[in-house]
């Protein structure tokens, strides 16, 4: 019998990036790279574990923009084209690197690309949502949802806005995966009093905060972060365990920084002659990552001095690090179980894109970890928060602390000099959208289409990703443009709706371009009973 539980939580999210107007839109590559390097490898890991009958449980949050992009035919087609190009490049790379120290890696990439194509195209019919649903139905993955466009909830000044985010998320999740989500990943783990009440209305049972979200609750939690608390509305709150997070997250101390792991910043997209690589970079000659990387982290040396990547060495480290992680959790659980009068749960949440995209060996590490826990360890059991709540239905009640998992733990990342200008526009747009939803109770035809598109544009602007990119200060143009464009579109639609003068061709072009949430109902922004400012 196990002494405690480990809840591995992966949060998969990308902002909605879809540009039908440009076949080579660079930001669409975010999706393609994530599919090749993260989502497909994770799906393959789950498939192998299922095939080998290894019992496991992982909580996987899949954000609605990602669900919509994975469903989108245009993006699916473009991805298949992209993957075919990469397979072609992989073949060339095998020839180019023959008799060099890079040959083993080139063979590895060729195999990976072929496997990716097999998984994506043949096995799951170009839609990875099918894969996630399958794992959910098999009971090995607890699929949960996220804010509809990953909107930053603490800065939504009207509760209607939070309702719109959650209502659309739940409805997409239900349609795609056939059931109501038990849990939600609130975007950026950003919690503010009142958010839980909205979740409650959609029958959501649990959400996550950063460590201090629970630890600094208004009443000191008896079990710290090793058991959930109930918010006063009755939704369970699970908090991140700092120790297990750090081992994986930390750029310096974490596993991903090991010298034998693959170096992210050396890529043939930058390294090779244009004569060779031009077909695989942007047609305008803009260089970017291709995913073909032949060096290992090596140590604290210049990029030029990185040494060749050796897949066998990396695999050895994967085994070592998975064993180390398991050992640490075992000791942690042993200790916690000795001082607690119930089994502890360790919540280890990560961005899914960390695995594979940034930490190339991440998916493999996850697989080895799960296999090791299953083979060697009777102390730890993998569980989802829902499993835990079934075993422990009675929990302490306390108000969680307003917080986020961003730098400094509160809202600084999303409210600083670089991005504070957005909120006066958001708040105005939300006020107007609520006014529209309350005024036009049963719109029809083109009027209804305009109202629905207005809701889409507003929610797309609200994505926390844009404010985050502005905060980082690295090439903010795209984020600024997306924010301004969506708000601008919204304001224009608002005027058209109010004056009953809708430019139908323009509306159609918007619907075609920003086609997130095909079945959105603008009334999700209506004022509800007792819905007030948060």
């Amino acid at each position, binding site marked *: 019998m196990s002494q405690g539980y480990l809840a591995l939580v992966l949060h998969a999210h990308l902002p909605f990036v879809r540009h039908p107007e440009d076949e080579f839109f660079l930001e669409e*590559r975010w999706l393609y790279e994530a599919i090749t390097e993260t989502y497909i490898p994770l799906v393959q890991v789950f498939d192998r574990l299922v095939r080998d009958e290894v019992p496991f449980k992982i909580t996987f949050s899949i954000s609605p923009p990602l669900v919509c992009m994975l469903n989108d035919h245009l993006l699916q087609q473009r991805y298949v084209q992209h993957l075919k190009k990469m397979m072609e490049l992989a073949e060339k790379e095998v020839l180019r690197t023959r008799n060099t120290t890079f040959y083993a890696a080139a063979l590895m990439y060729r195999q990976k690309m072929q496997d990716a194509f097999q998984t994506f195209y043949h096995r799951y019919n170009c839609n990875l949502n099918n894969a996630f649903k399958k794992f959910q139905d098999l009971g090995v993955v607890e699929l949960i949802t996220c804010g509809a466009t990953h909107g930053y909830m603490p800065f939504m000044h009207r509760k209607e806005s939070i309702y719109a985010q959650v209502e659309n998320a739940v409805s997409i999740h239900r349609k795609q995966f056939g059931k109501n989500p038990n849990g939600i990943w609130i975007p950026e783990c950003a919690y503010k009093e009142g958010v839980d009440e909205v979740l409650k209305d959609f029958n959501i049972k649990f959400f996550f905060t950063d460590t201090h979200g629970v630890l600094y609750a208004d*009443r000191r939690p*008896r079990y710290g972060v090793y058991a959930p608390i109930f918010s006063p509305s009755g939704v369970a709150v699970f908090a991140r365990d700092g120790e297990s997070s750090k081992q994986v997250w930390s*750029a310096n101390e974490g596993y991903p920084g090991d010298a034998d792991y693959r170096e992210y910043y050396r890529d043939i997209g930058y390294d090779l002659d244009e004569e060779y690589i031009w077909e695989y970079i942007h047609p305008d000659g803009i260089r970017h990552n291709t995913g073909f990387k032949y060096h290992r982290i090596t140590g604290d040396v210049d990029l030029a001095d990185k040494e060749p990547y050796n897949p066998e060495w990396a695999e050895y480290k994967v085994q070592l690090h998975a064993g180390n992680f398991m050992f640490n959790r075992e000791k942690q659980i042993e200790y916690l179980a000795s001082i607690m009068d119930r089994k502890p749960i360790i919540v280890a949440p990560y961005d899914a894109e960390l695995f594979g995209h940034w930490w190339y060996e991440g998916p493999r590490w996850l697989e080895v970890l799960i296999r090791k826990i299953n083979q060697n360890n009777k102390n730890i059991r993998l569980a989802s928060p829902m499993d835990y709540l079934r075993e422990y239905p009675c929990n302490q*009640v306390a108000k969680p602390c307003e917080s986020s998992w961003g730098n400094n733990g509160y809202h600084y990342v999303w409210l600083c000099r670089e991005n504070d200008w957005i909120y006066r526009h958001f708040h105005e747009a939300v006020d107007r959208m609520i006014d529209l939803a309350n005024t036009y109770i049963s719109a029809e035809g083109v009027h209804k289409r305009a109202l629905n598109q207005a809701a889409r544009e507003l929610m797309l602007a609200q994505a926390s990703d844009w404010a985050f990119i502005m905060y*980082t200060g690295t090439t*903010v*143009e795209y984020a600024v443009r997306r924010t*301004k464009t969506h708000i601008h579109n919204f304001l224009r639609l608002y005027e058209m709706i109010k004056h009953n003068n809708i430019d139908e061709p323009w509306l159609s072009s918007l619907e075609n371009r920003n086609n997130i949430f095909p079945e959105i109902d603008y009334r999700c922004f209506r004022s509800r009973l007792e819905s007030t400012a948060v």
Partner: protein
Amino acid sequence: MEALIPWVTGVLIILGIIAAAWYTSSAIYKRVKKIEPQPKPVPAAAKKNSPEAEFAEEITPFPVWEKPADFPDPELPSLYNKDCLMLMVRDPYWLYAYWEISAAKHEELKNKYGDKFWKGQPVIRLYDITGVHSFDGTNANSYTDIYINGICNDWYIEIASPDRKYCIDLGRILPGGQFVTMLRSNIVKTPRAALSDRFDEDWMWIDGIYQSMGRVQYGISTALIYEEIPSSPEFNKPMVVNRNKTKGVI
């Protein structure tokens, strides 16, 4: 003057050589650059976080490639012509406020106080209203005036202690010393920044646990029990076990 000509010519020749050298070296640099690793997009962490930091954005999202936009960004209105003073919480020690004063309000204040009004010192009056039930401008625990300039339309406000309630007024101090409120903000509460000292505990059952039990009605004469065991339609709501502490009841 004539003596200067060789000097000027000499300087021009030297400048020409420097320019040519610069051009050649930059051209070479460009060629070299193609086959060398580019300076890569720096992850947020490297720029913003201390080496020990280990927060989520350290390695996410993906780097953004630079590609010039084909068309300029649409411009958003700088004003919406409304009266608004929005107060937001950034962290336990900082608030942020933005505001807008409509033309009508401008006119109203001018009519009421005359031209001298706009010569008054612009001020944010920060009220600590922790524990105050209905704040009316006079019953704050304390207030602090922050002098600001007259042209800004937002401000970051540093506050002393976490876990407190605040409200602000945007106003002016008239030459006679009188404070006139122009706009009042919403009320905010700052987050905690430490463990709570409250050790009393409430416990709650997961909702739905009693769903299958059907309607339970006994001891109706005991008002307390009747209140605590809800009738069927209410069974979805959580029950608070500790009957003496009703904080957790919704």
